[in-house]
């Protein structure tokens, strides 16, 4: 899988799955622009990993829930490198707590980042992709979308929304050879896992067929596959990377 000459935008690229996607794509020759919201040091680390391996990447501070962020990211990529081939939406925000304690602010924040942020970046990315009649959009969802998850109804709603959005956009964009897919990870070793209480985590790990959590690199491999020319007849699909947890939907 060679991405030489291609340009990718990754949201939430400073750490976790986003970082693994940035590094994997850059190692395969793509020029990568990623954004991060607050973790400047982590973003610098991601950049250092890419640059030390001889790759090309740049980082900008931006909040994807801001309606102007999508357009700004796409403009920045086009100004630097003149094209856009790949968009990967990894930026995510997650909390934990039962419904009765879920504040309206938390709900709005999760929907704005995980779902509406995807809408903003996808809308901005469409025009340059349509002009070249090629594009690969991959939106990170989660097993929460099909399986539900206690204490994370907001995140479940947002990630399920991402799948509905992904399928609809896949139908709209197919005529321009743009594919739109989502990847649904289960328990992956990132900071997002840290908010889940021990007993809930133990319950989850008991269900996973592989009896282990995933690594960000294992999710990135699925994203990179969908971003490659290998996946040219796959669109509107949700690829589960969950070690055999859900196996349904």
């Amino acid at each position: 899988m060679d991405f030489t000459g291609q340009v990718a935008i990754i949201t939430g690229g400073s750490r976790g799955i986003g970082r693994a996607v940035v590094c994997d794509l850059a190692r395969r020759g793509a020029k990568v622009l990623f954004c991060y919201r607050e973790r400047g040091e982590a973003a610098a680390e991601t950049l250092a990993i890419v640059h030390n391996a001889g790759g090309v990447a740049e980082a900008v501070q931006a909040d994807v829930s801001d309606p102007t962020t999508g357009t700004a990211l796409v403009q920045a990529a086009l100004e630097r490198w003149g094209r856009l081939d790949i968009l990967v939406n990894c930026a995510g925000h997650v909390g934990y707590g039962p419904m009765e304690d879920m504040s309206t602010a938390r709900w709005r924040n999760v929907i704005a980042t995980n779902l509406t942020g995807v809408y903003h970046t996808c809308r901005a990315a469409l025009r340059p992709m349509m002009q070249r009649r090629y594009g690969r959009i991959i939106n990170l969802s989660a097993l929460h979308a099909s399986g539900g998850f206690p204490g994370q109804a907001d995140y479940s709603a947002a990630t399920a929304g991402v799948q509905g959005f992904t399928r609809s956009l896949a139908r709209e964009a197919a005529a321009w050879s743009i594919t739109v897919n989502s990847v649904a990870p289960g328990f992956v070793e990132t900071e997002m896992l840290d908010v889940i209480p021990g007993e809930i985590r133990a319950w989850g790990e008991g269900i996973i067929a592989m009896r282990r959590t995933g690594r960000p690199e294992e999710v990135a491999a699925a994203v990179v596959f969908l971003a490659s020319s290998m996946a040219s007849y796959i669109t509107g699909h949700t690829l589960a990377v969950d070690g055999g947890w859900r196996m349904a939907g």
Partner: protein
Amino acid sequence: MLLQDQVAIVTGASRGIGRAVAVDLARQGASVLINYQRNATAAEEVVADIRQAGGDALAHRADVSDESEVAGIIEATLSHWGRLDILVCNAGATVDAPLMRLKPEQWHHVIETDLTSAFLCCRAALPAMRSRQYGRIITMGSLAGLAGNVGQTSYAAAKAGLVGLTRALAREVAAEGITANVVAPAYIDTDFIENVSPAIREWAINTIAMRRFGTTDEVAAAVSFLASPRSSYITGHVLTLDGGWVMP
């Protein structure tokens, strides 16, 4: 190369999707056993194509719905290459008929060829994979198994059955480094769909988001990804290739 030094078995590999899968696995570095049932000439052509490209392959005739012949496939693989990393259960057949006219022998033929064959191949392949605590099993499903299709009650039942088989097997062997996944294509340009009436073809094309059928190479690419070490946290998944048709 994704599959350097690995060994693969592809059933029904003399033509169509199976052939493309075998050629792609070999291109990625795997040595491939080309199983076929009838067309030895076509199978030898696949072997020749692979060898000409610098790859390694062997043709082996076997009826995959016959227990002892399936055992022969595994024996041939192990005696030739000494290991088994990848099993692609691709062999299949369909006898299309409305349910009211579907004869029991037609039903049995499709269930045996499409479903029981996968059971036999998976069971026979497991000891070699278990001994090395590594394996990649890919079964060839179909959109018909997920969404149904007119005139294909037997085929849809067999292909849906493959999903259940694969997922249950995925749970059984997950702790041993073995993954099992389904690739489920919709309409792919093979001689399988030459029998489809022009009216149905036109209807399908017009309802597929990409407005085209898939190619055998596109199916092969998905199989190669799932067959590679890079799919290490994916198991029990049904990867659909439908060009944005049903999006199950």
